[in-house]
Each structure stands twice: as structure tokens, then as C-alpha cells.
């Protein structure tokens, strides 16, 4: 049976570059991703980490930068730190960013999921991506996404 896949598409009134940079800039991440941030040198093959902004030793998700092609494509492997290296518990996130008649379409495909991670990310991506859009369009993110969430993700 194929592993589940999650897809979310959102259109944002901002250039592709700004959308791409907002995904990898810790100062922006913390505003819309529950006070967490994404850390890496963002070169293909490098390690990346999703960590608490204020205590970066608290890593909640980690993986490898599979592809990094600013501003159109970013592909990451995605696992809990304790599951790193376990293919059954490693999923993949593909961010595709393209211009569509003056707006930017961001497509997030999160696939190769196990059921526990599917449940976690299905509740996570809509508020995170809704808030990213609000941040880029209004200059301020949605307040509830500036705080840490109980799940720590």
C-alpha cells in the first residue's frame, strides 16, 4: 500500500523570492511557525534542522536538503531526530514556488508519510501556511502562530 501524501496549495501576493526566503529565514520562521525556525546552509546534501528559535538545541524535525533551487524549489527529507536514518519514519517535503499571473503559487507536497506524522502535519501545515501568507501580505503574522504549540512542532 502506498504511503500517504499530503498536498496544500496557497496563492500569495509576494514575489517568488520572498516566499522562498521566508521558508528558510529564522527571523521570519519564528513569526509564523510557532516560535520555531529552520536552520541549514541550504546546500544540496546538507543537514537541516527545525528547532526552537530561543533554544536551538531543541530540534524537533531534521533531515537532508535534497534539492535547493531558489526561488522555485526546495526539497527536504523530514524526520524526528530520534528517527533519523529510519526510512520508515522519514518523509519528504517538496516546496514548489511559481508565478501565476502576478501572484505566487506555493505548493507543499508532504509525502512518504507514516500515519503518526500524517496526523501531526495535517493539523500543522494549514495554520503555518495561512500565517506565512498573512505575514507576507500584511507585514504581521497570525498571532496564534507566533507562540510555541504544545506538540512542539
Amino acid at each position: 500500500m502506498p504511503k500517504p501524501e499530503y498536498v496544500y496549495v496557497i496563492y500569495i501576493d509576494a514575489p517568488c523570492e520572498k516566499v522562498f526566503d521566508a521558508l528558510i529565514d529564522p527571523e521570519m520562521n519564528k513569526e509564523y511557525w510557532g516560535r520555531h525556525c529552520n536552520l541549514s546552509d541550504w546546500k544540496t546534501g546538507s543537514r537541516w534542522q527545525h528547532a526552537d528559535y530561543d533554544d536551538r538545541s531543541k530540534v524537533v524535525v531534521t533531515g537532508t536538503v535534497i534539492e535547493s533551487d531558489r526561488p522555485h524549489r526546495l526539497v527536504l527529507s523530514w524526520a524526528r531526530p530520534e528517527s533519523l536514518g529510519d526510512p520508515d519514519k522519514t518523509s519528504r517535503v517538496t516546496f514548489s514556488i511559481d508565478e501565476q499571473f502576478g501572484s505566487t503559487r506555493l505548493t507543499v507536497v508532504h509525502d512518504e508519510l507514516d500515519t503518526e506524522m500524517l496526523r501531526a502535519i495535517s493539523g500543522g501545515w494549514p495554520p503555518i501556511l495561512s500565517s506565512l501568507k498573512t505575514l507576507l501580505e500584511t507585514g504581521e503574522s497570525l498571532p496564534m502562530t507566533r507562540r510555541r504549540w504544545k506538540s512542539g512542532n
Partner: protein
Amino acid sequence: MSKPEFIYVTYIETTAEKLWHALTDGEFTARYWFGARLRSDWKVGSSFEMVRSDGTVSDAGKVVECDPPRRLAYTFINLSDKYKNEFPALATFVLEPYGKLVKLTLTQEGFVEGGKFYAGISKGWPAILSSLKSILETGTPLEIPFEALKMND
């Protein structure tokens, strides 16, 4: 094998009353919904139509549930020949206030297996709901022309 079902969740900085108005007032929908004016008296069992700017009807169905400002459900099918062997599918909007935000969950179900309508609405809703979020939060909708959705057909 489960039948296809489309689910989209977005968080909008607005009130449930304003969001309800945005979903049911034809003059307002014309500003963010690819120019479509929704036409209905919103009584259960009444007709529901999407009216293009030239006055022709693109999609039609019936109101199934109307409980302002919490739940709205209607069926519709696009009237073009492309979908002539398919039936109206049920779209349900659930509005849940969440502090200063409203969580909007759209579910559409009841598609013919192997039909094309599911693929059509899967492209349309993210653009419509992204534009809805923009107009409520910034006052300006996204300028996504309808043609943008046909590019990858």
C-alpha cells in the same frame, strides 16, 4: 478504495459574521471569486448558481444547509460539456472562531469515481480561498484570472 474528497483548511483574520457575508453575498464574491457572483436566497432546497460577469451561469446546484454564521452547504456542478456525465458534489463550509481568527474548513464530496470534476475543483478552491483570505485581511483580492487554472490541464 475510498471516493475522492477535497478538504481545505485556512485561518483568516476576520470575524465569523464577515466571513459568512463574504461567502454568501454575490456582490462581494464577484470581487474575489474569478468574477463569479453567487446567486441564491440561501434557503434549504433553493437553487444555487455561480453567475459570470456576462450574466451566464457557470455552475449550479441546491442549498443543503444554511446556519449562519457557522455552517453552509450546497451542491454544485460546472455546466460545461466537460462534466456532462457527472453530478453536483456537496460543498460544506464550517466556520469556527479561534480568538481573533476564524478557521474555515471546506469539504467537498460526492464525486463520480473517475470523473473530471474533482480535479477541476481541486485547482479552483485554493485560488478562490487564497483570494478570499487576502480580501478580508488586506482589502485587496488576488488578481488570479480563471485562465491560470487551465494551464496544467
